């Protein structure tokens, strides 16, 4: 299995505050990775640096063998990276279907293998929306949605760019038990179709059910990386979550 994402020595500071401290990560294609850690441990900063929303000061990021450090966020998305935002950021003046149209037009359609003909786009939007259970609201505006529905829209929008790597940043927050299962099943189905998934979550049940591998970040450092069953028993991890 080839390496899809290779992060080496990634470091990021905000003024005097060290958000990321020399993070290494090798992600094989097709893996389901869970990324956990206490609040403020740098998970979202990590995602931002990998995707290009923020620039890391040290270290390298390689995607499918290609160095992407010099590429802007939209260029990385076009290569096949997609992320959902932890706090949903929908396009407020566009309908849900139109929200999905943007990544289709600007990401999926830039690659021959994921190209969708103009006439087929509305159907594709509808298809993506029904995967997250929002098909009946396709013509509504994001302002009509609940917080939870907006998270689903975030996920759908990330999926709509036909990514090779999907980073789901706390997509399950606030969902009911049944909804969590629904989205988990969706993510696993996507993974079976070949999409590599990084899931950032606080809901341990979901992370353990989903992940083939678990990485733990604490205060900007990676403190554990391996089989989920072993990681949750790692004393340092337990200490980080429950205190001394």
């Amino acid at each position: 299995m080839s390496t899809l994402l290779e992060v080496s020595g990634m470091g990021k500071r905000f003024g005097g505050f060290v958000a990321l401290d020399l993070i290494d990560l090798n992600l094989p294609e097709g893996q389901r990775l869970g990324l956990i850690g206490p609040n403020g441990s740098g998970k979202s900063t990590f995602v931002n640096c990998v995707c290009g929303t923020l620039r890391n000061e040290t270290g390298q990021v390689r995607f499918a063998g290609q160095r992407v450090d010099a590429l802007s966020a939209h260029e990385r998305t076009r290569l096949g990276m997609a992320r959902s935002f932890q706090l949903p950021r929908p396009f407020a003046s566009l309908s849900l279907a139109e929200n999905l149209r943007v990544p289709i037009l600007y990401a999926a359609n830039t690659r021959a293998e994921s190209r969708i003909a103009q006439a087929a786009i509305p159907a594709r939007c509808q298809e993506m929306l029904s995967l997250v259970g929002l098909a009946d609201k396709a013509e509504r505006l994001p302002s009509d949605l609940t917080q939870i529905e907006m998270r689903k829209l975030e996920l759908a929008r990330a999926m709509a760019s036909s990514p090779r790597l999907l980073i789901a940043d706390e997509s399950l927050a606030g969902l009911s038990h049944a909804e969590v299962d629904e989205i988990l099943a969706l993510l696993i189905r996507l993974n079976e179709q070949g999409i590599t998934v990084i899931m950032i979550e606080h809901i341990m049940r979901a992370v353990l059910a989903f992940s083939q591998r678990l990485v733990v970040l604490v205060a900007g450092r990676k403190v554990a990386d391996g089989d989920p069953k072993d990681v949750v028993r790692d004393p340092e991890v337990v200490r980080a979550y429950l205190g001394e």
Partner: protein
Amino acid sequence: MRNAAFALILTAVAAVLFIALRWVNYSYAFVAGYAVLQFLVLGTGWNILGGYTGYVNFGVTAFFAIGAYTTVVLHKAAPFLPLPVMMLIGGTIAALAGLGTGYLTLRLRGVFFSIATLALAVVLQTLITNWDFVGGARGAYVIPPRTAPLIGGDYKQYLFLIMLITSIVVLVVARALERSTLGYGFAAIRDDEAAAEATGVPTLRLKLIATSLSGGFMGLAGAPMPYFMGYLNSTSTFDLNYAVNALAMPLIGGTSSWAGPVIGAALVGGLQEWLRVSNLQEWLHISIPSEANVLIVGVLMVTFVIAAPQGIVGLFRKKR
């Protein structure tokens, strides 16, 4: 409705309008009509960057003046050029100015771009005021030809026709943009630029396209001005009135659609003309100075921005 059909309909309406006005031969109609159409082009141009993409350009007068002063320079240096060619050159230079300003400032937050456009207007005004070749503050005379080419008759009617055709072109482009890939990209940038970038939209490139297109159209609006007025000086060309109207019309009419600036131009232009020539002053027994006319536009704009952010178009649009 496909774009070609829209263009045809507009052309038909314009043709009917023009022929009717020629037949009636009421010269005031051509003058007032030119003013309204000029603002239509100016407002539509502004709206491509402002309403569609969410970046406010306060330096409207700079782009308008580039169009006008290019015509002055060409008139002196190459008077054999037909006006449409001068307009295209002026519009292109204005588009390049937009590109340049954008390149310098669009990597920063939107507000810095807006302030930079304000700066551009003042710098340009100072440069032109000090440039003797085009008359500077003293002004320059631009004598229009006696008769109109192609259609004969009064030259002002020719200018009206030119502006009418420009309006059609600009409106067709604006409408085509709305539902195009570019248009969706613009809207994404306007709604949430970081999210747009993350969904694959090349934000800087699109912003530069919008700025250039917008600047170019505003330059087109200003290009025939010297012939229309016969005289041009830096104070009147850079009059803040143009900037306020260019903003007010889309903001009042509605920024999300090509129809907004049209409604805004018709309403505001019409209102201003009516105030100017009507018997309102006699009727109310007061004298309304010309500035009040202009003040009303400002007040209307602020009122709409506060109370009806979607403009008149928004008031009529069905809720989804």
